[in-house]
């Protein structure tokens, strides 16, 4: 419902009360915070990424691209590729699991939606590390899953799922699923049910209703959810560290390793910045493609 149409006067009064004479000042606290603790460190990282590692782990100030060339080493490229793949699989699984949940919650009566949203967010009340350890107890060889499956006679010997890429995806999906559900819920909640009925009435199968009406109209939520899951999954280091074991390293682990173990800050900075550039590039390509296809001609019109 458009508030402006309903009460034009009200809008004016809200404006007069809530917007200060110099609205720019509202940005100041956040700008100072971001400036001090985000842009300055980022600039430092950029500077360091062109430097050399000192013999004992310090930073030797030079201007060299050697760190960036190093990133192209097949060994590291493989880590990048694996990270992108695992993050993509995580995002896809979250989408498939999260969409039906979000749709279900958004179609509940308003007073029951709150309970469900609370249930979605409850895991956040417990420390992430503790929750990850809980998963280890569930998945390990003599853990809950294997014990139950063996006692039911479904499997003969324990499944070694812990310390594999599957375990990483399980951990990441578990951790980031709410970030998919919440924006999707907000998008579906705004979708009038009559549009779904209208499509159904106009001979669309359930699949066609989803593809032609629900997905296009909840796209902002879909995109937001995917970004919110993909980006932190790409940079995750705790889940792969604890659940992926020593064999499967993701970019997050590599960066952590360079900074804390190898004490090679310049190389660690370079990897971090490449990761960041990749993410921004991905977003830019998406926005470009999306912008170009803003008014898609329907099939029959193009002939």
């Amino acid at each position: 419902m458009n508030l402006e149409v309903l009460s034009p006067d009200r809008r004016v009064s809200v404006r007069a009360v809530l917007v200060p004479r110099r609205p720019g000042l509202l940005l100041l606290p956040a700008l100072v915070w971001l400036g001090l603790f985000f842009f300055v460190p980022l600039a430092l990282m950029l500077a360091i990424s062109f430097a050399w590692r000192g013999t004992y782990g310090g930073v030797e100030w030079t201007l060299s691209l050697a760190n960036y060339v190093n990133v192209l080493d097949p060994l590291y490229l493989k880590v990048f590729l694996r990270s992108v793949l695992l993050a993509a699989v995580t995002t896809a699984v979250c989408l498939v699991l999260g969409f039906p949940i979000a749709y279900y919650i958004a179609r509940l009566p308003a007073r029951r939606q709150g309970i469900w949203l609370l249930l979605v967010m409850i895991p956040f009340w417990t420390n992430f590390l503790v929750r990850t350890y809980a998963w280890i107890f569930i998945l390990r060889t003599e853990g809950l899953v294997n014990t139950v499956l063996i006692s039911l006679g479904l499997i003969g010997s324990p499944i070694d799922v812990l310390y594999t890429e599957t375990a990483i995806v399980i951990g990441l999906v578990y951790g980031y699923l709410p970030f998919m559900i919440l924006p999707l819920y907000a998008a579906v909640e705004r979708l009038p049910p009559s549009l779904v009925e209208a499509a159904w009435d106009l001979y669309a199968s359930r699949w066609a209703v989803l593809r032609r009406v629900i997905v296009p109209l909840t796209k902002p939520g879909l995109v937001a959810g995917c970004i919110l899951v993909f980006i932190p999954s790409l940079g995750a280091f705790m889940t792969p560290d604890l659940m992926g074991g020593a064999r499967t390293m993701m970019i997050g682990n590599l960066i952590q390793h360079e900074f804390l173990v190898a004490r090679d800050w310049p190389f660690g900075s370079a990897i971090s910045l490449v990761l960041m550039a990749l993410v921004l590039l991905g977003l830019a390509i998406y926005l470009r493609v999306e912008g170009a296809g803003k008014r898609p001609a329907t099939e029959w019109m193009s002939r």
Partner: protein
Amino acid sequence: MAESSVELRDVSKRHGDTLAVDRVSLVIRRGEFFAILGPSGSGKTTILRMLAGFESPDAGDILIDGRSVRGVPPNRRSVNLVFQTYALFPHLTVAGNIAFGLEMRRVPAAEIAARVAEALDMVRLQGKQDRLPAQLSGGEQQRVALARALVNRPAVLLLDEPLGALDQQLRMDMQVELKTIQERVGLTFICVTHHQEEALTMSDRVAVMRQGRLLQVGSPRDIYEAPQSAFVANFIGRSNSLTGRIETVNGLRCTLRAADLPAAALVAATCPAGAGIGSPATLMLRPERLHLSADVQVDGYDNMLPARVCKAIYNGSETQYLLALSDRLSWQVLVPNVGNGQKRFQPGESVFLRWRADDAVVMPE
């Protein structure tokens, strides 16, 4: 081909604790403009949603073109609904919206283009095919919604309060236009509305519903002039009522002694079927069937009662008088404003009310 387009057989539907539709049986003929009229909560929208396939009856059966549609989902029914809120797809253009149903049924592209153009033409939206719904006025959105349904040439077109969101002038124009379009395409239209004027103007037949029950089905004229219950008489148009007991019966004529009138007053009326002397009855009389005069006149009218003018309301095309017939009985009269020499009555004035016996409808209690 079956003569009936839609048939409801003893259909019931329960919503929680309330019986939304209560054993409704109805036959709607092919090519008919049929209105289902009733106040909110009368079950008319539930019937529409069952015809569209969004809900299914708890009991009874629905036949479309002679075939039961039990278990057939909306996308497999040759029925299209024009939503009250229009429900246009905001991400598709006008043409994209209209083409949606044809695309879903995989109609060849060339035919889609031709039929969309034809539909745009019919609702007079040529040149607006590339607009998005948000760029259209309410009346234009309404036309797109209509075209989007019509273009599929369904066996039955359903309209849910089709003109509810339009302003008065546009509503009257669209009533005529909808009827014209319906006659041109020859499809069965079923329109649900709580607006009696809409139902009377557009439809060939009207069904009046209340609390899930079907009260009366008939032509607009039947419904208006021969209501079978007080509810129908009061819901369709305005009505004056008089309750009393039948005093004498003489063939088709009877006299009624009214409870709220002085003891001497007897009212002559048409005798309702099956009514005998002493049985209670209600007389309903339309405000425009009453005639007012300042003096006693006996020129072919069967009834004359004295009254006092309480209020005179000028409505433009007519003047509405509120009259007191006794302490407990007040009626209204509509007098068309036809000329300058016309007599105007002032509040407080004494007048005489006259009407013909067959202009009133008498219903046994």
